[in-house]
């Protein structure tokens, strides 16, 4: 029996539910908690468990399938794919990530988190993601 792979979403969060689902499943995929060949619940079942509309989960699955993480099977949920390691992201994409990180770091600084702590958090997170 594989370890539990649970996702949590906050329905009161300003982040859309579908985005929270995509982010939560992607973390599990990158960390290796969901290995290739693992079947995910059907759209209907996951929507029921999370109490969100079917379309919300379907959209999240489609986005992850577009990234090459999932193989969508009609009526039978999704299967985690053996995703070959991708080529390094192009400079344009790296600039996008840098911009997002910059905003996040600024927000943390504005809320009083010391720079050393931010650097430590980033290092921990980077090392925690296995693939």
């Amino acid at each position, binding site marked *: 029996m594989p370890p*539990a792979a649970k996702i949590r979403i*906050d329905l009161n969060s300003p982040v859309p539910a579908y985005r929270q689902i995509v982010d939560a499943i992607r973390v599990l995929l990158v960390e290796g908690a969901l290995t290739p060949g693992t079947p995910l619940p*059907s759209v*209907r079942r*996951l929507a029921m*468990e*999370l*109490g969100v509309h079917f379309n919300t989960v379907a959209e999240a699955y489609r986005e992850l399938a577009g990234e090459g993480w999932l193989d969508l099977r009609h009526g039978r949920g999704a299967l985690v794919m053996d995703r070959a390691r991708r080529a390094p992201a192009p400079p344009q994409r790296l600039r996008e990530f840098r911009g997002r990180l910059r905003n996040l770091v600024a927000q943390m600084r504005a809320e009083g988190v010391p720079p050393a702590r931010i650097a430590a958090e980033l290092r921990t997170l980077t090392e925690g993601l296995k693939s």
Partner: protein
Amino acid sequence: MNPTVLFAICMASMAGVTLALPWLSPARFLFGVRVGEAFHKSEPGRQALRMYYVCDIAGIAAAIALAFALGLNRGSTWLLAILLVDAGAAVGYYRANRRLRGYASPADAPPAVREADLFAAEDRLPRWMLLWAIPPFLLPLAGAADIHAHWSEIPARFATHYGMDGRPDGWTTRTPLHLYGMFLFAAGLLLWLLLSGIVGYFGARRSPGRRTMLGIMISMMYLMGTVFTGVGILPVRHFPPWMLIAITPAYVAGLLFWIYRKGSSPAPPSESTPDECWTLGDIYNNPNDPALFVPKRMGHGYTINFGNPRGKWVIAGLVGGIGLLIAFMFWMMR
């Protein structure tokens, strides 16, 4: 059994159920309104409870008065008496619900954080279900075998209906339909109960509550299997019919006691459903919630999500199924 004693048992059972209803519901709800666990003991909480009890007791008193006025020999008196008790409880519930709406406390709502396990393989029927769901089907089968073995001993005309005093007041002739029909009905009813339990299991979110509900449905299969098999073998096994009637209140009393103990034990709050999707604290209608069944706010168990398009088909299927069984019973007894 004396009809007056039987009526007293019937009224006591109904009064027990309706009077206990506020205490069999999740503790943070009172009459379907989210008021928090301590509210029951506050003055407004006590007033609402009194309001409910007054209406409920008035209904019970009216039912007893009606029975004395019309006599207990007619079936319609019994039906009217039962309806009066239900009506008293329903009016009391509605009035208490209206009074408490102003005290609704959204702050007591569980956080809107939802969690889901991604391993789909775990969402299966529990193994014990098959183990426990099969034996009830053996009861009508054994009853039919008993009838078959004693076919020649059954008189050409035998009693099929008994009055409240226990004396037969309906007879029929010895035909395969009249003798095996009751077992067919029992098997159909057991199948209906099992299917309802399975639909409820897969139509609700994962929680210990849905396993409990499946367990209750299976325990009801034992009750129904015993009662209707007992009725079916009456032509060959002579025992007082009231014994079959007495099983039901005993089962209900045991079930209520168990629900009360379960409800009063500390447990984490169950899933959150939006307050605005509940009508009168009892009818759930949320088109954005894919769950077919959600935990009730009044009483114990699950209720259907009327906002789910599949919910209407499920209701039609369940009502149609039981309707067919009742039609078969009437056709058999004609």
